Each structure stands twice: as structure tokens, then as C-alpha cells.
């Protein structure tokens, strides 16, 4: 048996994993990163539109700061987020982007003087200040009060990922590709590393570490139509479930992006609408202002996606053999803007659909329809990133439910979360490594490896039946698309749960045609499938139990956000490995600790909330504290601290400088 020892083990080499690894390695800890693919090919590379950080450099961002970013994030989450974590996040985001700039990410910069932009389909001139020249600029995104999303054209994830990966190479982090986490090794409530399979030679190895981080990204591929890469299968989160101890938070909180292109599902960034593009229907009519007079095409993603589907249901969609769709029109932005700032969008549209979106009029319109995009849910952690259930187990990035997104994530807040959580969680993880020794015996390690060996032997020894892995997988994805999608109801969710459970049973019996260990994609599909099904069941079952609508979770049979009964986080645990359903329980969100108690989001339907009695009470308290402190001349930081104190490692809690106003 091969055993590898290190201090910090990071599973996943996307933005979150790599930034964590830099944090632990720079604290002198030996760090190993494992990834299914070369790390620079992780799905972070596909992020297009940008990263939110309240720098307030551009004239359209003036007045922005941590407080405004915080309020946008909380409203976006439909009050489902952990506000303390959201505070940690907004305070660190400006530091994260400045760090990345120093690592060479070529952020687009403010150019002094006049420039022409499109706002609300009107061409308008804005004037950038002299003293902002050369600082990082930002674009508009959905659900934000200010232009806050920093970018490198529409290849932001790519440049960020290369910047962080290069830093990890510089620091000599030990990065190993084509390695797959199969299961976590744990004993007496502590995680000691992982059983890992080499995807080239098929060998199993044990990686033993003081602390282990799950940074394996989203689980979008349990759906059929998704913007996610083919490796986003949730196997990391499933490994946590399979410990029987670790929990997932809010799996039912799944985001659907308004504008993936039809039929491939490849994303066209929100930057299209942020920069002034609009949605149109079969008549070429711009319909969003009718539904959302204030934020129009730029309400939060859950709202826009639902409005689009509502409009399609009214018969206003464009018919095609791939189903009804709507149009995304960016031609109004002009060719020059598109070829500079929306270049990947243009390339995708031309390559896959033969449409040049810079062509004027209907010729340039791109067919779009909402599809699965992001998992707000994931491995439940404390604000430090550590699992509340297994010590020494950490998680960050899209894989985690750290919980700054609640039931809807704002565009640009995810890549920002990856690096910010990498900085914060990486630091807490390093502290854990410095305080704890490895004290696990080889017999325990061997038992965990043997269990996985046994599982693979068992799969290879199954007789072929008339079932097929590919059929089961496709059926799972169809069920998720059809019954656990944008509009949900009790009846269909129940059907989904029932059938997914049957699929899980089938997946445990299906045989494979090739029985070699080395480089065998069929075997890989076979052992991943039950893991994916456990994720799918967790999503569908949690969605069935949550009898309210909040953020992206929309129940046609329970239309209201029910703060009185549902201001709580779903937790899912799978203690019986033979079971086909997990246990579901809940964690209350404490209104009396919130900085912003639940209220109307400012977009979406009004009057659709069942209020919690404490919301008004806490609001009165918040108002009183604010008034008193203001009367005593307290600044915004002191008021914030009085309302909801929070901690950060390093110097991350220090104030952020802004052009023209210093540290105010």
C-alpha cells in the first residue's frame, strides 16, 4: 500500500483549492493539491464575466464600499446566507483582488475622460475621473447597486486561475493531476486524509494529512442541461456524505442562469446584460421591464430566470427543435465593445451557432434559455471553513456551504468567494495543521484503502445485465431537469425522489464491459454514478421538504418566502451506506444576530413573504443602535461592529483604502 504524508491536503485545484494551498504552503506547511485534471483546466477557467470587489474606482462605482456589497449579497441570498460569513467576505474581497493584481492578473483599468456606454438601451456618455486613471475598473452585474464587477474582458476566470496557479508553482506547491478522491479517511471524529485513485494506472493510494480541504467545485452535472464542465460531478461532496458524519448544507439551493446558449448550454456571461444587452421575445419585444420595472434585465438571476420561463409559458418563446427559447441581444452595444469586452461570447456564438452577435438587428440575436449553473449548497462548514462534524476537514469554494450565498448567489460573487475563502480558510487550516499532529495507525488507513479496493473489485465482478451506466446517468439528469428545475412542486419532487432512489439501487448492480484497472473511463463512470445519485437525491429530497419559495428554490405550491417557518438551513447526512435516502435536519438562522433582518429584496414579487415576528423586533433594535451610535459620532465600522461582530485572520480585517476617500 502506498502512503503519502503531508501537512495540508487540498483536494481540487480550481481557484479555491489553489489559493488555499498557497496559504498553507506559505506558512511553511508541506502542501499537496490533487486534481482530476491539470489544475489550469479546472472549471474556474470558464468564469467569464468577473469578480465583485467594492473598489469604487469607476465613476459608476462611486459610493460603493463593504456595506453596500454586504447588503446586495444578503438581499441576493434572500436572507438565506450566514451574514457573519458575508461580512468576512466583503471585507476581504478588495484585498483579494489587489493581491491578484500583484500576481499579474491583468484587470481592465479605468481610463480617464469620457466613454460611451449603453444603459437601459440608451447610449450614454460617462466621464471617468482623472484621479482614478489606471486603477481597476468594473462593470455592472445583476442584483448590485453599484458597478462592482472587475474583469479581464470576458475571460476573468482564466486569468485569475493562471495567476493563482502560477503563484502556487512559484511557491513549489506539490500539484498532482489525474488523481481522484474516492473516500475520506477518518477516525474518532477527525479526518486524516483520503483514499485516492490514480486515473492513469488505476492504483489506489492513501494521502495522510493533518488537515484536508474539499475544494472540488460544483455538482452541476447531476443535471442534463448545465453550464458546468463535465468534471463537475459532486464526487468530493459525496465523499463527505459517505463518511456518514459530514453534512451538506442547503443542497436544494441550485442556481439557474438566465442566458446559456441553446442547445449546447454553454454560458453567455451576465456581463452581456451588465454591459447593456437585453432579452427579447418571439416578437423582438424587450419584456423584462414589464416584469421588473426597477432592475429590468438585471434583477438577480433567480428572478430573471423565472420571468423568462414565465414569459415562455405565456407563448412568447421562439419555437425551435431544441424547445422554446428567447433571444439575447448585445448587438446594440456595437461591434467595437463586443470585440473588446465580450470576445469569448462572440467566439462561442460564432463557433457553436454560426451567429455573430455584433451583427446588427435580429441577425445577431443569440438563442438563450435558463439552465443549471451553480450550487449554493455544499459541504457545511463553520465560518473558519472547518466542518462542524469532522475536525480537520475543511472545505471552500463552490464545493462548500460556507454560506455567503444562501438561496441565490450574485454574479461575480463566486470567483470572489473562491479566492477570499482560500485566503481565510487556508489560514485557519494552517493554524489547525500547526496545532495538531498526525496520530493515526496504519491498520486504520489500510482498512479504508481496502474498502475502496473491494468496491472496485465488486464492480468489476458484477455480471453484465441489460442495464447500462450511461442510461442510468442520463435518466438521473433528465429527472433533475424536468422535476427539480426552476419551477418545483410537491408532486413532481416526490416522483423525482422515488425514481432517483430506484436508480441508486440499479447503479449498485450494473455491470461494466471492460474490467481493466488502468485508464478505464467506464469503470470511472461506474463508481462515480452512485455518488452522483446521492447528491441528486439530497437535492430533490431537500427541495421536497422545503415547503416555501426562497431565492432560487421556487415552489409553485408554496409561493411565499416563509420566514416564520423556514428561516433555517437544511442539513443532510447519509449515515447508513445501504440506505437510499439521507437524514434531513435543520439549523435555525438567528434573526436577533443579523445585521440586516429579513425584508423585501427590492426586486421580484412584492407581498410574498410570511414574516417572522422577530424580524420587526430586530429591525427596531438595529435602528436604535445605529441612531445612538451615530449621535455619538461613531463611524460605519464602529456601528457595524456593534451590530454584528466578526473575526478575520491575518490583516484581513483592516480597512480598505479607496481613491479620493482614503480609509473612510
Amino acid at each position, binding site marked *: 500500500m502506498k502512503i503519502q504524508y503531508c501537512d495540508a491536503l487540498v483536494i481540487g485545484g480550481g481557484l479555491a483549492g489553489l489559493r488555499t494551498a498557497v496559504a498553507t504552503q506559505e506558512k511553511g506547511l508541506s502542501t499537496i493539491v490533487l486534481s482530476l*485534471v*491539470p489544475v489550469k*483546466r479546472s*472549471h474556474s*477557467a*470558464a468564469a467569464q464575466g468577473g469578480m465583485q470587489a467594492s*473598489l469604487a474606482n469607476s465613476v459608476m462605482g462611486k459610493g460603493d464600499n463593504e456595506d453596500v456589497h454586504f447588503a446586495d449579497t444578503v438581499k441576493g441570498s434572500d436572507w438565506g446566507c450566514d451574514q457573519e460569513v458575508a461580512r468576512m467576505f466583503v471585507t476581504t474581497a478588495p484585498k483579494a*483582488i*489587489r*493581491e491578484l*493584481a*500583484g*500576481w*499579474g492578473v*491583468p484587470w*481592465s*483599468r479605468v*481610463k480617464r475622460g469620457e466613454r460611451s456606454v449603453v444603459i437601459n438601451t440608451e447610449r450614454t456618455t460617462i466621464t471617468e475621473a482623472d484621479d482614478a486613471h*489606471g*486603477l*481597476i*475598473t468594473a462593470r455592472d452585474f445583476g442584483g448590485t447597486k453599484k458597478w462592482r464587477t472587475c474583469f*479581464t*474582458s470576458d*475571460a476573468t476566470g*482564466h*486569468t485569475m486561475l*493562471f495567476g493563482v496557479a502560477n*503563484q502556487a*508553482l512559484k511557491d513549489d506547491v506539490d*500539484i498532482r493531476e489525474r488523481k481522484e478522491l474516492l473516500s475520506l479517511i477518518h477516525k474518532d471524529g477527525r479526518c486524516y486524509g483520503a483514499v485516492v485513485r490514480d486515473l*492513469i494506472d488505476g492504483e489506489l493510494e492513501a494521502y495522510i494529512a493533518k488537515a484536508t480541504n474539499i475544494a472540488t467545485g460544483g455538482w452541476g452535472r447531476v443535471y442534463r442541461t448545465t453550464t458546468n*464542465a*463535465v468534471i463537475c460531478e459532486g464526487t468530493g461532496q459525496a465523499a463527505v456524505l459517505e463518511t456518514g458524519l459530514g453534512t451538506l448544507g442547503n443542497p436544494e439551493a441550485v442556481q439557474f442562469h438566465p442566458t446559456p446558449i441553446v*442547445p*449546447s448550454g*454553454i*454560458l453567455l456571461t451576465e456581463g452581456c446584460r451588465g454591459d447593456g444587452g437585453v432579452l427579447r421575445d418571439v416578437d423582438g419585444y424587450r419584456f423584462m421591464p414589464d416584469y421588473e420595472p426597477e432592475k429590468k434585465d438585471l434583477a438577480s438571476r433567480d428572478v430573471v430566470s423565472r420571468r423568462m420561463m414565465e414569459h415562455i409559458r405565456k407563448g412568447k418563446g421562439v419555437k*425551435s427543435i431544441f424547445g422554446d427559447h428567447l433571444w439575447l441581444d448585445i448587438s446594440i452595444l456595437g461591434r467595437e465593445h463586443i470585440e473588446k469586452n465580450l470576445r*469569448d461570447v462572440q467566439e*462561442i456564438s460564432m*463557433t*457553436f*451557432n*454560426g451567429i455573430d452577435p455584433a451583427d446588427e438587428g435580429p441577425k445577431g440575436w443569440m438563442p438563450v434559455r435558463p439552465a443549471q449553473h451553480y450550487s449554493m449548497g455544499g459541504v457545511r462548514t463553520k465560518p473558519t471553513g472547518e466542518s462542524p462534524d469532522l475536525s480537520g476537514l475543511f472545505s471552500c469554494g463552490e464545493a462548500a456551504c460556507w454560506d455567503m450565498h444562501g438561496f441565490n448567489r450574485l454574479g461575480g460573487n463566486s470567483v470572489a468567494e473562491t479566492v477570499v475563502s482560500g485566503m481565510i480558510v487556508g489560514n485557519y487550516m494552517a493554524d489547525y495543521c500547526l496545532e495538531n499532529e498526525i496520530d493515526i495507525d496504519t491498520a486504520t488507513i489500510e482498512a479504508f484503502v481496502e474498502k475502496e479496493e473491494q468496491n472496485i473489485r465488486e464492480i468489476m465482478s458484477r455480471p453484465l445485465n441489460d442495464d447500462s*451506466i*450511461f442510461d442510468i446517468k442520463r435518466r438521473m439528469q433528465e429527472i433533475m431537469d424536468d422535476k427539480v428545475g426552476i419551477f418545483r412542486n410537491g408532486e413532481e419532487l416526490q416522483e423525482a425522489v422515488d425514481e432517483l432512489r430506484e436508480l441508486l439501487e440499479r447503479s449498485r448492480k450494473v455491470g*461494466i*464491459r471492460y474490467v*481493466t484497472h*488502468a*485508464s478505464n*473511463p467506464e469503470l470511472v463512470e461506474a463508481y462515480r454514478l452512485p455518488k452522483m445519485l446521492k447528491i441528486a437525491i439530497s437535492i430533490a429530497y431537500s427541495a421536497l421538504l422545503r415547503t416555501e419559495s426562497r431565492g432560487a428554490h421556487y415552489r409553485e405550491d408554496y409561493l411565499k418566502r416563509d420566514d416564520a417557518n423556514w428561516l433555517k438551513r437544511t442539513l443532510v447526512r447519509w449515515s447508513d451506506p445501504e440506505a437510499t435516502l439521507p437524514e434531513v435536519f435543520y439549523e435555525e438562522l438567528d434573526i436577533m444576530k443579523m445585521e440586516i433582518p429579513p425584508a423585501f429584496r427590492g426586486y421580484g414579487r412584492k407581498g410574498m413573504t410570511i414574516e417572522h415576528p422577530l424580524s420587526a423586533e430586530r429591525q427596531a433594535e438595529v435602528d436604535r443602535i445605529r441612531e445612538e451610535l451615530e449621535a455619538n459620532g461613531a463611524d460605519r465600522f464602529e456601528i457595524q461592529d456593534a451590530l454584528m461582530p466578526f473575526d478575520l485572520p491575518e*490583516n484581513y480585517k*483592516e*480597512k*480598505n*483604502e*479607496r*481613491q479620493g476617500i482614503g480609509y473612510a
Partner: protein
Amino acid sequence: MPDTAQNKGRMLTFEILQYNPSDPQSKPHMVTYHLEETLGMTLFVALNMIREKFEPDLAFDFVCRAGICGSCGMMVNGKPLLACRTLTKNYPDGVLRLMPMPSFKLIKDLSVVTGQWMDGMSKRVESWIHSKEEVDLTKLEKRIEPEVADATFELDRCIECGICVSSCATALMRPDFVGAVGLNRVARFDVDPHDERTAEDFYELVGDDSGIFGCMTLLGCEDNCPKNLPLQEKIAYMRRKLANVKDTGGGLEIRVEG
């Protein structure tokens, strides 16, 4: 909508190299499959159908399937391309011959090791910012001229797909050649004002025949680069700049035009 309707239903022929170097019994051989073309079919769609229908253990690599991550380079009728961006309708006779990219270690069938190769390249050219400045994260970021940031971004768009390496005669003959991808990377850090390295520093890294002087200007790299990077122009520019270092024996402040 896509203009592929007229091609729907055509029978396509795929000839695919199959070989597993880790299996002593395996010999490289071509296997032929037939598939009915679907609307807007890419090689991503086609290869997955072949795996599902005929060959469950056929090895190939896709991640983003959108031309963004650089995973899926392969030889299509002799030309290295990103398979996920390759539409079958662009092959009028309906025959696609698929081989793994040369110059990289073969894992199996169409899957090759590009990641470690690229990490080696990155380490050799020290593909990270070299700066003595301590960045204080609480302070305003360093100001950069907008045009310079854009110029850096332009060269930062490389996705390390390896297609330039597979298009390059020098790379085939000299496995230690850093390739257009490595030389472009040097040019990228050269324009980035955050990086303090001088021409002499870059000369140290790539000033030899496995670096900047290895390029024979055959242009295959630039012709095939899926990101349309200006590889020849940048290589020529860096060559002039580094040749100057050689001529003057290094150690001098050098001005170059270009």
C-alpha cells in the same frame, strides 16, 4: 439558429487511433465507427456518443466543452485542433480521422499528458511575477495604463492547449524546446509592468536553442493557435531583444524597437 439543418442525418465515419501503452498486449491500431450526424454536432458530442454506444473505455479529455480550458487538443485529419470546437459539418466528405497530439506522452487513445509538460514549461520560464515590491493589500493597487493592461491580457489568453507544440517541427525534434507557448509566456511577462525582469533575466531562461533561438519560423503555431495569439510577432520581437543581450554580452541596459 445554426445553419446545419441540411446536414442532418448524414452518415459520418470516424477513424480513431486506439492504443494503451501501459498494456503490453496493446498495439496502435485504427478503429472505424459510423454515426448519424446531429444538428450542430461537435467532436465532443460525437466522441461521447461513440463511448456510450460502442466503446465504453475509449479515452479522450474534455472539461469545459466550450473552447476555454484547453483540454481537448487532438489531431483531426492531420491538423491539431480543439475537439470541442470542431464541428462535423465542416467536413464535407464526412470522414474524420482522429489521432492523439504528438510531442506529448500518450496515456491512452486520444488522451495525452499536457498538464505536466505545461507545468515544466511554466517552471522553466518562471511563469510568475518577479517583483521586490511588497504589496500592501489594504492600499490602492498599483496603477497600470489601461492599454498596457489590455496588451498583457492579450498575451495572457493562452490556454496551454499544446496545439502550438504539436504544430511545431522544432518541438518534434527537440523535446526540451519550450515551444511557442513558452516564448509567448516570456513575452507576456515582458509587457507586464508588475514584473521587474530584464532582457538579461529572460536570456538566462530561454536564450538558447531550446528556447528563443530554436524557433525555425515555420508558422505552424500561429496558424493553429485557437486563441489567435500573435505568436510569430512576439517570438520575433523577443528574439531581437534577446539577440541584443547576446551581442552585447549581457549586463547592459538595452533598448529595442518593435
